[in-house]
């Protein structure tokens, strides 16, 4: 072993990096971006489910519990009236609301029973858990403020929980399953298309295609069809496996789920073709993967609900196609949404628009890279 020969390799690698600014940027900029995103997602006020508190209690205890909830760091609680709470729950603006009924105090003091009602949105098990946890902590804290009466047992908790969608039987897989069906297909299709189209350039066959009567649109469309068909077969396989082998919960139409996956596969294929125009080597194309994957994984609502993000990050999320895929798939699978839902129509329309945009962009860049 000769140190000089070892160092020759090391030095060559640094020389290569010096010529490859893009890789350097990837190495040093992307981690900071990803960590900052995480910071904003977790510390920037995001992550806390929004909770409504409806205090109807005639006695004093309800107000104490409400105040405890409002100061809880686990949830973003605010006092509202019942009708507002009900409509906000349906609009997806609340993870749940808590009703402290008229005789909440008297029940607690005379019968020794705490009877809060909890109405949960229910499609997000983690959020539901947080709400229940915050409530029980607030109840404990509220009881602690009462003057202690010797001989009196601490009141028993009689919790009534209802779910707008799903229910306690929904587990984390049910929640993530829908999103991951989309995620897996999107990224695999994107990567494969991107690299395949790039190979066309690097092996010189694109030059031949350009020297043939093929129009750019025909090339893009041909690619799109080929890879979309592959992607649809993959999507069907993933879907059937998730629903029937893994038994991921689904309350909606399987066909609608598949339609969403089809739209998404289309946008992934075209995104792949579009981005492959900006890479000269397969190595560079591979670098697009973290750039496309990381922000979408964090911001599309797969892990952290978009509604829990700081406002400016929500704007970013709404620019990502996967956000609409995840939202649509969850609406269908967890809430049983169908085509008549405005939310579903919106998701589908945005995805369709994204597909068209990508097709046009892919065609346009193909033209530019030839001259």
């Amino acid at each position, binding site marked *: 072993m000769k140190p000089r020969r070892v160092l020759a390799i090391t030095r060559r690698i640094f020389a290569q990096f010096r010529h490859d600014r893009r890789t350097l940027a990837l190495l040093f900029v992307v981690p900071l971006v990803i960590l900052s995103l995480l910071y904003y997602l977790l510390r920037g006020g995001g992550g806390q489910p929004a909770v409504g508190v409806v205090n109807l209690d005639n006695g004093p205890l309800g107000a104490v519990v409400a105040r405890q909830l409002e100061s809880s760091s686990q949830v973003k609680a605010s006092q509202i009236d019942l009708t507002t709470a009900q409509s906000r729950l349906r609009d997806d603006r609340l993870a749940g609301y808590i009703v402290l009924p008229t005789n909440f105090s008297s029940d607690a003091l005379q019968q020794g029973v705490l009877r809060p009602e909890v109405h949960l949105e229910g499609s997000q098990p983690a959020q539901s858990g947080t709400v229940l946890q915050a409530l029980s902590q607030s109840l404990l804290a509220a009881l602690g403020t009462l003057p202690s009466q010797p001989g009196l047992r601490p009141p028993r908790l009689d919790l009534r929980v209802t779910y707008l969608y799903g229910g306690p039987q929904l587990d984390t897989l049910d929640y993530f399953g829908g999103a991951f069906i989309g995620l897996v297909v999107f990224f695999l299709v994107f990567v494969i298309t991107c690299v395949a189209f790039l190979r066309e350039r690097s092996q010189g066959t694109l*030059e031949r295609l350009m020297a043939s*009567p093929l129009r750019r649109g025909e090339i893009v469309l041909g690619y799109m069809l080929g890879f979309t068909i592959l992607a649809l077969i993959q999507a069907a396989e993933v879907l059937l496996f998730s629903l029937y082998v893994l038994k991921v919960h689904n309350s909606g139409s399987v066909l609608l789920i598949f339609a969403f996956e089809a739209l998404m596969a289309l946008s992934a294929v075209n995104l792949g073709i579009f981005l492959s125009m900006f890479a000269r080597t397969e190595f560079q194309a591979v670098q697009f993967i973290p750039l496309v994957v990381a922000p979408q994984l964090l911001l599309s609502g797969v892990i952290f609900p978009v509604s829990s993000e700081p406002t400016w990050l929500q704007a970013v999320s709404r620019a990502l196609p996967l956000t609409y895929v995840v939202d649509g798939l969850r609406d269908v699978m967890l809430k049983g949404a169908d085509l008549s839902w405005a939310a579903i129509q919106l998701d589908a329309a945005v995805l369709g628009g994204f597909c068209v945009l990508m097709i046009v962009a892919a065609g346009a860049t193909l033209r530019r890279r030839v001259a």
Partner: protein
Amino acid sequence: MAAQEDHAAEVTGVVKSFGRQAALQGVSLRLRRGEVYGLLGPNGSGKTTLIRCLLGLVKPDAGSVRVLGRLMPDLNVLSRIGYMTQTAALYPDLTVLENLRFFAAINGAEAHLTEALRFVDLEDRPDSVVATLSGGMRTRASLACAIVHRPELLLLDEPTVGVDPQLRRRLWDQFREMADGGTTLLISSHVMDEAERCQRLGLIRFGRLLAEGTVEELKEQAGVEKLEDAFLQLSAGEPR
């Protein structure tokens, strides 16, 4: 214009630079129908760029290109042109026949697959995957893909580079055969001894056409015995 009928291609005063790198600095040439025209020049002299201009793949900064009577770029002419790229650009994971069928299909002419295979002596290897072929076979397969749609004008970019002497001779026989059948061929090369087999030669250097004519004419013009000397003689004193 009736005069154009005899010309398969007309390049007039074409200038092209890539950034600050001049590739063509005012090239004019005419390809007569049915001739074998040799474009002779060292590496980097602008041969590939000129061919890409003929195909409309490169937009000249100045000058014009007419091919088969049409001003380029024109997609509709492209099905009448065959193009063999400098390196054998094929799909390495497909078989010879699959490649051939694909290039025939995008030119809208799938009738002559076996004929094209026979022409390049690959009729016994249609099902070989291209990646497993030898370099010479790959070149032949690439040629087959360029001629499968029976083009009127065939542009071959250094087709005989890295090819053994037997195959080289065989290829030149085939080029001759195609020209006799009425096809116009433009063949670029940086090898002088092959050039003797062209009807006319153009000597290109630094993006300029230095001289043009038959082999004899060029030797005469330079007053030397060998074509190689003629090339050196004619390019001497050329400014960069």
